[in-house]
């Protein structure tokens, strides 16, 4: 309930929200947790395994219990920390992992079965009968496990990613971080100050102490005002730095719209930042740790620091009769704050015999809380002293087991933290993350004065190291109490004492793990699941480690720690993957004929990043095969037009291009005459085929190489590699011109006729023999013409600057149609090339050699080239290899499929009989049956043989004759004609 006159929300606007269907009122600036506590709501969740009733434990992102689902419909968000989520009008929150209701959860029977559900029980059972795991046990376990639920609908909200750069990144906006930012900022360094809280100040907002003689929060306001006024300082509230990566790169998650109603606007919900900082100051503070005692998990039992935060920052008293339990002086601070606020303090139980006394409340010294009662909310606690046990009425227990510095980020590069006995906690290993220095509570300095000092000094040091003249700012007055603590991890006794609240891992579980020889801390963690809940062990790691150390007779440092890994606090996949939803995953590349192709009704299909037309349906054609067959016939009988601009084109110039090409291609190019084109084969250095294509000699010192669409990038990288690293002696330069030229194949007996209508000078057959190339003028535009063919017909490829691509394509198509032809797509192109036995990456798939595709003759004997030596390894020249052949169905079934395997006639279709496989098939309207290309053991020696073709997946089992892979016009007369 609110305490009149307390907290920093005085005069804040009222806000209405709902929890499990009940409407509540809170104040602007409230978190869900503070608002629910203000409304007297204590039961907010259920634990993971035993479905125990749970209440708010902390006041930060480490909260293990108060996890709620926010919103409805596609955008519903599970597992939101009530302690972080700010309330807004209309906010709708629901409890999770309970059925039918939070108050009455049937699965809480698990709690009664707890004795049978101890550490690792599932490794020892559910094994009989064998078939029951998938059918019975696993579904049951899966349904009872898990926390919140996804909507199962596509994410409807916007997320984004961004880059930021700074000299000094300050992580955490508490007293230490503020001073660090002030020091570095005043020195002139570019500073980013990031704090996960909506309001900066850290513990200065949560404590009642003073800084510089005034309430701490007022001092915070002044510092923030000064920082905000500096051009070189960037304040990033609601931004949690979640990961430290190499060379000063940090990942951070900013909650941009998380605290606002989803308006459907373009405002992102979250932004994932990649921050590059030359120096970083880790001022992330510390996390208070619970004490393990019997039933220490009831709603109403909270961290003492959280109780003070709710009281001092939000003006909320989490209970009417509050008891305090601790092993250090913070417990006393808590009781004093409560008393000062007029909240009844039932008493303070301090495990230390030398604990300070107090006037305003009773202190049990050298005593412990050993049990609690109250099913859905704390009713009383049991205190054990030297004299015995006694019960104490209380509806809230504030507990403090001491503080753990937030060392996580400092460990993200595998640096193990260091144990400090005096504060009974781990602190960062200096230098574990290059350029990052931990200060204040994160460094084990728990007094306010120490935080201010360390922060100021580190901020100045960082700026200085970067060459900014820096001075340590004057340090304001602040409390400088020493940290007085006597370690207390767990209270001995019977019953279950919780370490990991969410995963229901108790002291017993850790001891059992040790007894079963899971003595390594990693084994214990994995066996008990301690530290694997959504708080990633922030509340339980150190205590569990201490219990394990005790159980195995080792010291805490000997026992070691588990590794902290990114993210420090969980990050949504939508934020890390922002921009990729839908088409954003990879750029889209559109060729100049795209619009015209779509107008022709062509389905556009992905070819790498490009889109290419599949086929161009004509009215009345209901199946792609009809269109494809027509387009093939069209090319064979009249003329077809196809956009080939997506093929890689590389312009090479210089005196040594010839020598260079001889080195990257298996065959010789230096002898090629100007104005001629030659087909070339490229190998990888390991002797397998990389790519193939044509290369044209445009001038004495100028060449144009083409690559396949698929390998364009790889080939460019390869050429750069060969030139820069292996043959820098060669004088040449090359540039990709793929995007400069729109290029179209014009193929068919009427190709020349079509072109002559477009070219300013008609083609003389004599000047343009097969494999000729040269400059032409196309309707007044400078272009290039290549007499090459991928279809086997008389073929040309005509290229113009890309700006004219759309226009030329439309012109070509119109004229082709006038000649009884038209555009053709990838399907027809594929059939045409199979008819000719031309290969694509279906054949040169990275495992085939020149020998396999029957091109060993193209590997020149006269010169060295990339891949030549290894291509001649015995294993790559073995006649037994699978080698390229053609296939023609001769069995009853006339259908053949790519991906089918080949077997000797009459042999069973099993692996040991495997003779090869089919790579490409198509129906040849020219030949009137299906044809295929395949790799077959000793293939070329088996022409004329009949083999068995089996495609289990598509239910095809037939026989094929092995034939020459060139099905159509093997002499190539039509191509040359």
């Amino acid at each position, binding site marked *: 309930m609110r305490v009149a006159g307390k907290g920093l929300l005085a005069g804040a606007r009222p806000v209405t929200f709902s929890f499990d269907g009940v409407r509540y009122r809170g104040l602007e600036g409230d978190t869900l947790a503070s608002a629910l506590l203000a409304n007297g709501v204590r039961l907010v969740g259920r634990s993971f395994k035993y479905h125990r009733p749970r209440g708010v434990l902390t006041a930060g992102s480490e909260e293990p219990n108060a996890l709620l689902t926010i919103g409805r419909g596609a955008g519903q968000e*599970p597992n939101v920390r009530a302690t972080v989520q700010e309330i807004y009008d209309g906010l709708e929150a629901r409890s999770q992992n309970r059925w039918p209701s939070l108050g009455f959860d049937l699965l809480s029977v698990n709690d009664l079965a707890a*004795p*049978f559900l101890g550490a690792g029980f599932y*490794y*020892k059972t559910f*094994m*009989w009968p*064998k078939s029951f*795991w*998938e059918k019975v046990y*696993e579904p049951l376990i899966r349904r009872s*496990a*898990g926390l*919140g*639920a*996804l*909507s*199962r*609908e*596509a*994410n409807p909200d916007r997320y984004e990613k961004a880059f930021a750069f700074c000299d000094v990144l300050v992580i955490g906006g508490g007293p230490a971080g503020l001073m660090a930012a002030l020091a570095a900022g005043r020195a002139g360094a570019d500073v980013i100050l990031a704090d996960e809280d909506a309001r900066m100040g850290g513990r200065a907002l949560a404590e009642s102490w003073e800084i510089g003689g005034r309430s701490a929060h007022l001092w915070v306001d002044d510092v923030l005002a000064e920082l905000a006024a500096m051009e070189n300082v960037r304040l990033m509230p609601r931004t949690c730095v979640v*990961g430290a990566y*190499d060379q000063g790169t940090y*990942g951070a998650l900013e909650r941009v719209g998380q605290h606002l109603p989803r308006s459907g606007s373009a405002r992102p919900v979250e932004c994932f930042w990649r921050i590059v900082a030359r120096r970083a100051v880790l001022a992330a503070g510390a996390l208070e740790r619970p004490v393990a005692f019997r039933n220490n998990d009831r709603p109403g039992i909270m961290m003492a620091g959280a109780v003070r935060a709710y009281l001092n920052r939000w003006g909320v008293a989490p209970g009417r009769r509050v008891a305090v339990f601790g092993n250090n002086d913070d417990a006393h601070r808590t009781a004093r704050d409560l008393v000062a606020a007029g909240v009844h303090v039932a008493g303070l139980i301090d495990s230390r015999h030398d604990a300070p006394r107090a006037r305003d409340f009773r202190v049990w010294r050298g005593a412990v809380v050993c049990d609690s009662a109250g099913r859905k909310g704390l009713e009383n606690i049991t205190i054990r002293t030297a004299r015995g046990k006694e019960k104490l009425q209380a509806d809230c227990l504030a507990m403090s087991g001491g503080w753990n510095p937030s060392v996580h980020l400092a460990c993200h*590069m595998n640096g193990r933290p260091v144990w400090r006995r005096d504060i009974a906690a781990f602190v960062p290993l200096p230098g574990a993350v290059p350029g990052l220095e931990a200060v204040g509570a994160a460094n084990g300095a728990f007094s306010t004065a120490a935080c201010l000092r360390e922060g100021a000094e580190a901020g100045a040091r960082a700026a200085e190291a970067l060459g900014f003249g820096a001075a340590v700012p004057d340090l304001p007055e602040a409390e400088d109490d020493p940290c007085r603590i006597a370690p207390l991890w767990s209270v001995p006794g019977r019953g279950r004492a919780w370490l990991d609240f969410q995963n229901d891992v108790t002291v017993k579980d850790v001891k059992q793990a040790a007894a*079963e020889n899971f*003595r*390594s801390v990693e084994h214990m963690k994995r*066996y008990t699941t301690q530290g*694997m*809940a*959504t708080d990633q062990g922030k509340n339980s790691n150190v205590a569990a480690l201490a219990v394990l150390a005790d159980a195995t007779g080792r010291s805490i440092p000997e026992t070691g720690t588990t590794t902290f*890994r990114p*993210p420090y606090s969980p990050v*949504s*996949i939508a934020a*890390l*993957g*922002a921009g*990729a*939803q*839908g088409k*954003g*995953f*990879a750029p889209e590349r559109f060729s100049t004929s795209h619009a015209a192709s779509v107008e022709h009704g062509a389905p556009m*299909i*992905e070819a790498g990043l490009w889109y290419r037309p599949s086929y161009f349906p004509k009215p009345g054609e209901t199946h792609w095969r009809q269109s494809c067959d027509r387009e093939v016939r069209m090319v064979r009988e009249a003329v077809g037009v196809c956009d080939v601009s997506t093929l890689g084109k590389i312009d090479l110039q210089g005196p040594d291009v010839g020598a260079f090409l001889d080195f990257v291609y298996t065959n010789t190019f230096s002898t090629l005459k100007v104005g001629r084109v030659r087909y070339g084969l490229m190998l990888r250095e390991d002797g397998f085929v990389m790519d193939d294509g044509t290369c044209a000699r445009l001038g004495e010192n100028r060449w144009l190489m083409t690559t396949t669409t698929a390998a364009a990038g790889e080939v460019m990288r390869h050429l750069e590699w060969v030139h820069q690293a292996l043959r820098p002696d060669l004088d040449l330069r090359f540039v990709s011109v793929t995007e400069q030229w729109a290029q179209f194949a014009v193929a068919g007996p009427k190709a020349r006729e079509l072109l002559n209508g477009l070219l300013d000078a008609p083609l003389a057959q004599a000047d343009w023999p097969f494999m000729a190339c040269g400059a032409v003028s196309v309707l007044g535009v400078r272009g290039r013409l290549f007499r090459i063919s991928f279809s086997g017909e008389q073929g040309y490829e005509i290229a113009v600057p890309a700006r004219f691509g759309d226009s030329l394509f439309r012109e070509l198509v119109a004229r082709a149609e006038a000649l009884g032809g038209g555009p053709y797509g990838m399907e027809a192109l594929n059939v045409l090339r199979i008819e000719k036995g031309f290969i694509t*990456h*279906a054949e040169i798939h990275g495992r085939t050699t020149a020998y396999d595709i029957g091109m060993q003759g193209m590997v020149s004997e006269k010169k060295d080239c990339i891949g030549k030596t290894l291509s001649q390894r*015995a*294993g*790559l020249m073995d006649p037994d290899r699978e080698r390229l052949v053609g296939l023609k169905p001769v069995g009853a079934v006339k259908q053949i499929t*790519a991906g*089918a*395997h080949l077997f000797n006639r009459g042999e069973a279709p099993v*692996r040991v009989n495997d003779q090869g*496989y089919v790579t490409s098939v198509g129906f040849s309207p020219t030949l009137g049956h299906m044809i295929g290309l395949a790799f077959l053991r000793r293939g070329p020696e088996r022409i004329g043989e009949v083999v068995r073709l089996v*495609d*289990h997946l*598509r239910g095809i089992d037939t026989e094929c004759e092995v034939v020459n892979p060139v099905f159509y016009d093997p002499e190539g007369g039509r191509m040359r004609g």
Partner: protein
Amino acid sequence: MRFSGLRVLWEGLTGNRGWEPHWRDPAPKSEYDVVIIGGGGHGLSTAYYLAREHGITNVAVLEKGYLGGGNVGRNTTIVRANYGLPGNSEFYSHSLKLWEGLEQELNYNVMMSQRGVLNLFHSDGQRDAFARRGNAMVNQGDDAILLDREGVRRLVPYLDFDNARFPVHGGLFHPRGGTARHDAVAWGYARGADRRGVDLIQNCEVTGIDIENGRVRGVQTTRGAIRAGKVGIVVAGRSSQVAAMAGMRLPIESHVLQAFVTEGLKPVIDHVVTFGMGHFYISQSDKGGLVFGGDIDMYASYAARGNLPAVEHVMEAGMTLMPMIGKARVLRSWGGIMDMSPDGSPIIDRTDVEGLYLNCGWNYGGFKAVPASGHCFAHLMATDRYHEAATGFRLDRFRTGYGIIDEEGTGAQHNLH
């Protein structure tokens, strides 16, 4: 002690006081018949099968850290037998068969869950390549189903079928594939080996391999010298370092592969789903966390931690393929060190040193191989003959060019597989 539901019941009723250590912590003896270097999944299963299949029990497994602390404890738990090339085909098929009886074999619930593995394809070319692989699986006697777009939609309706950058054309479904509880696999084999007399020695790092005129004699360790008749190197992630102790240079480059798990969620993904265009694979653990990963970070590393570009690429693939996971939060990420080989396939072979055997090069296929790898490596070490399911993983295949097993077809660049 035999594990069973009854045992759990009895212990529950008697205060769980009777549980015994799952394995002993013996001090190393001065001599063993066989020393296995590496207490990961493969090393532990090798020791187990040496004892179980070949009666060789005077065996020590030397682990520099804790048992199962390597990749067997840091992977995405996927089990499958969906390879296309001879060499791999029969081996992973053999492994899957061993998986299917593993709980009963080990009396340890490794939670082998045959929920099915679905590989999505996004073009006709990919479809045909997948069909070739699927047919190879059936030729081998395993199961594979080629699904069209609608078949995939029925199985996993939550994919983005309408707007994804690379639309889903269909998938290759492998019903017998699935997942298993990775740690339990290591622990189960450890317990099984220990019960058969194998000494599992943790915190014992090998610092040298003793070789006398071409024959292995034993190893030097941080816990003293240990003589051995035979030594097996099973240290994927550190293979090059340990092999160097025997003067060998391997065709291996070490890379870091990151993996991710989200906060616990109610059941939403019921299979293992992989994205053919984006190097992304995902499943949901029985605890409710989405377990997923992608490609390696693509630079040599022993750091067991990665960087953001690889992280972002995985998340972006997830968002374009199944945008319903956007609101799930990544809880933990981790990195494992992969032995990347030049053809993406492993090595199980003898070495030029008599009595010294090598098991390495698992790229990122190691977890599902654990049973067969141990089974076949134990067979090789015990009999000096290749197990029929593992005849192809020769150390010399790159030198000779015979039997290179390059499923990806990306060639001799270690990080591309």
